[in-house]
């Protein structure tokens, strides 16, 4: 789904898939997340990328300024570099824009930052913004419809078995619940995984 301003919403997993699709060439991307969430998102992105390709070399950098980032990139880095850029402001983005040739590298460079920091980038780094192009994403929940999916599954189970949730819990408590996998799922969806061993 593409929002106004060319920013596409994507979960961390979807971002990883897109990065995998464009790997092999130099490229830049930005991922906008809530302030405070950046370290966790970077860790999760690393895991998601590894799930698609365990051999993929990913490096996470957390230099506190644009200047420090340029120094870090001066040494050999891995195929995908993910940068915690949450603290970057006008000065940092302006510097990176002026010295953008030093950002150039063979692989992918992904800035994970906040919407406020990205706004500063847009104001002070027009060339870098151009490099990012359409590869600007805003974090979307990984499982936006979990509650709905859960209720749909439960409704389908009730219809299939002609039983209520309480019927299932009582039967499981008494150790007489059928062993079908559907009942295992039912208990988990009800939050009663504690009854899974009551056979």
């Amino acid at each position: 789904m593409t929002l106004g301003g060319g920013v596409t919403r994507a979960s961390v997993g979807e971002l990883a898939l897109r990065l995998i699709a464009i790997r092999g060439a130099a490229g830049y991307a930005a991922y906008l997340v809530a302030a405070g969430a950046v370290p966790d998102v970077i860790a999760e992105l690393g895991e998601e990328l590894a799930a698609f390709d365990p051999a993929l070399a990913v490096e996470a950098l957390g230099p506190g300024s644009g200047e420090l980032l340029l120094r870090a990139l001066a040494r050999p880095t891995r195929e995908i570099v993910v940068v915690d850029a949450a603290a970057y402001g006008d000065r940092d983005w302006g510097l990176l824009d002026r010295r953008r040739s030093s950002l150039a590298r063979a692989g992918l460079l992904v800035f994970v930052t906040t919407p406020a920091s990205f706004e500063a980038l847009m104001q002070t780094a027009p060339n870098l913004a151009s490099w990012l192009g359409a590869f600007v994403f805003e974090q979307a929940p990984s499982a936006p419809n979990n509650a709905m999916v859960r209720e749909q599954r439960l409704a389908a189970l009730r219809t299939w078995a002609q039983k209520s949730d309480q019927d299932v819990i009582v039967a499981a408590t008494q150790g007489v619940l059928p062993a079908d996998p559907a009942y295992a799922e039912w208990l988990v969806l009800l939050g009663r995984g504690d009854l899974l061993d009551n056979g």
Partner: protein
Amino acid sequence: MSLAKLQVYVTDRQLDLPHRAKDLFRTLRAELIEASNAKAIQESPQDVFRRLQLLAEPPAQLLDHLRANNLHEHAFCILGGEKNQARDHGAHHFQRSDDAWFDFSIVVRERSEHLDLLAYDFELRFPPGLGVPFLRFDLNLPHHANDERDIRCHLHPGSDDILVPAPLMTPSELLTLFLEGAQLPAGRAPRAFTAFEAAWFEQMYVLTRR
């Protein structure tokens, strides 16, 4: 003659599973996306993201005493496609290039050092002409009172009433079987029905019309 020893044999296998439900989920997702990219399934990678779900036990519903004592080790469901006991083709599923289609559900529990595979059902449904309407691999919950009679890990070969022993498999193995196995070799047409099969299907038609 008891099948208890056979049951032990088919389930007594050390499975190579990731430590976390999330990692198993990601592995299955990557396999489905690879299948999508190879056109082995008709769904797009975006469809895979939508149709494959990881549901954790709702924490708010944990019993107070379990939560307070941290005695509860979390269970998860990994769901591929919609719940579809009626085998309605309109429900979300995954469909192969040969139009066989499938869905699955998996229940696991995270322990401190490993992942327990508690139950699964993987059902593959075939277009008419491929011999059986469906294959379903079930892993029932353990320690059931009827373990001596029933077989915890089994296959339903086109019948919900008939089951035969099946080896315990990892979800990845089952998914691989559904994506790459249980299909005609490329370029080969289905074998002609024998007179027995033709008569059997004809009788089935008569029975279902009553």
